[in-house]
């Protein structure tokens, strides 16, 4: 094996940037989370308050509701994206006319800024401007009003997310499929495996790292979503789409409750890490144990 020093040198720039721009702010937020600090309180200074911010979080109904909504949103959106994305990536592996063209079209939603995506979906769904409520009403007599009905708002947010981010999964899986060696598939064919067996014992294990990274990235990003939802519903109606990213944004920005918002951020970060770790352990470790090398 080559010298370890060279390995560390190759990692160094990455670690340096993440330490300066990722770790430093994290430490600041960590410190602030132990303080009571609101710029516009009667006493605007920072006062040490120990764990009181964290204690309050456990009883903050709005926070718990936001977490639960975000979790639901994440599961609905991300599972659909992975399944749909895998399906589309497999289709892109075949040869058909105008493939490059269709791939470009299918990638377009990614290229639109979330602010504009939110605006576009808002424009499609606002009565008086948008075609969706208009035609649903004209053709089916269905009342579609996402600013009034919580379920509709939630589903619209999920569908918007699926529309916007499925291409990311497709591309990631496409890259993995493209760089896969052909030998295992040929071997499987020789061994007489059927399609299902090939998928389960050859494709899936080899795709696992890519699926996992797509899953994590999407799950995390769903937990951080702010601008799209902010444009679409602003978190309404009521708290139906007030996902955790937006909730924290409201606490830290307009409410200037820095201490509490910091604690909330860190708990959310912690929960995300735990969730990802469980997935990681469950999906990676378990299968590796079973498979003797």
């Amino acid at each position, binding site marked *: 094996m*080559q010298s*370890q020093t*060279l*390995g560390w040198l*190759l*990692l160094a*720039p*990455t670690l340096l940037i*993440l330490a300066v*721009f*990722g770790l*430093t*702010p*994290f430490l*600041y*937020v960590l410190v602030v989370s132990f303080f009571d600090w609101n710029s516009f309180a009667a006493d605007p200074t920072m006062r040490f308050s120990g764990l009181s911010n964290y204690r309050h979080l456990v009883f903050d109904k709005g926070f718990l509701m936001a977490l639960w909504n975000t979790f639901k949103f994440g599961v609905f959106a991300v599972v659909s994206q992975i399944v749909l994305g895998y399906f589309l990536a497999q*289709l892109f592996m075949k040869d*058909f006319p*105008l493939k*490059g063209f*269709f791939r*470009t*079209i299918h*990638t377009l*939603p990614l*290229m*639109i*800024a*979330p602010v504009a*995506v939110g*605006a*576009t979906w808002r*424009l499609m769904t606002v009565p008086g401007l948008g*075609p969706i409520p208009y035609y649903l009403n004209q053709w089916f007599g269905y009342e579609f009003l996402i600013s009034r009905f919580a379920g509709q708002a939630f589903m619209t947010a999920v569908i918007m997310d699926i529309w916007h981010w499925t291409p*990311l999964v497709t591309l*990631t899986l*496409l*890259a*993995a499929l*493209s*760089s896969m*060696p*052909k030998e295992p*598939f040929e071997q499987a064919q020789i061994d007489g495996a059927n399609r299902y067996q090939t998928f389960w014992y050859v494709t899936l294990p080899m795709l696992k790292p*890519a699926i996992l*990274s797509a899953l994590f*990235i999407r799950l*995390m990003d769903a*937990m*951080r979503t702010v*601008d799209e939802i902010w444009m679409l519903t602003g978190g309404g109606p009521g708290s139906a789409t007030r996902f955790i*990213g937006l909730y*924290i*944004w409201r606490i*830290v*920005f307009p409410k200037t409750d*820095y201490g509490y918002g910091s604690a909330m*951020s860190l708990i*959310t970060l912690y929960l995300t890490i735990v969730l*990802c770790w469980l997935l990681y352990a469950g999906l990676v470790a378990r299968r590796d144990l079973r498979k003797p090398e």
Partner: protein
Amino acid sequence: MTRNRPGLSLLFWLVASLVTLFPIYWMFVVSARSRVELFSAPSFLIKSFFSENYLNTIHDPTYQKYMLNSIVIATSNALLVTVLALLACYALSRYKLSGKENIFFWTITNRMAPPAAFLLPLFLLYTQVFVVGDWKMFDTRIGLILLYCVFNLPFAIWTLRGVIDAIPRELDEAAFVDGASTWQVLIHVILPLARPGLAVTAILCWVFAWNEYLFAATLTSVNARTITTGLAEFVTVTGTNWGQMAATAMLTLIPAVAFLALVQKHIVAGLTFGAVKG
């Protein structure tokens, strides 16, 4: 793997494209209408084209600058991140570094934090710590290019790790036996084989950087503002200028598609290479 029926695929993609394109088409419809026309009953047809929405943005030097900033920032960031992630993944994949799995997992936690609370420390860093004489990192392109690494590097490392791991070690070892240096192995062995992965990583990093809003809005002011923050400026108390906003969003697709076209061919190139190898 399965029988190839191009006609069926073509039909499927035509239908799928319609679904994908509908919101974009609606954005285009909005961009082609004047504010008054938007008030009529929603219709899918474009009867006349209200070009002022586009011309106002195209001729506005502010938006030209925003667009240029976005292009520079997203492209630099995507290139920087892809190169750094390639190096990092090579190290993680090929070297026995103590605690590397923990480091690998730690990198991704940088992407998990909800951004809102981190804006305050970043604002302080950019305005009070990263200051050299009169120069501040606040409102500079380099500031955003480096910051976007925080959420793009984890993504790139996680995507590329699998790609590099899948490249058989025997290939680099053979090259080392032939007397190649680490750099030569990276460039002549790893790079060609990882091309599809690198291309997709670069595209998606570019996309994340291009679309980012909260950091750009907080950490820039006049000079380094990006087009995404420019889009939010159309939302005001005296009426959101939906038409011009949609037109501007349509215009942002042009550099995005250009970048996509430029990089996308490497996904294909990788494919053929794989085929030759197989």
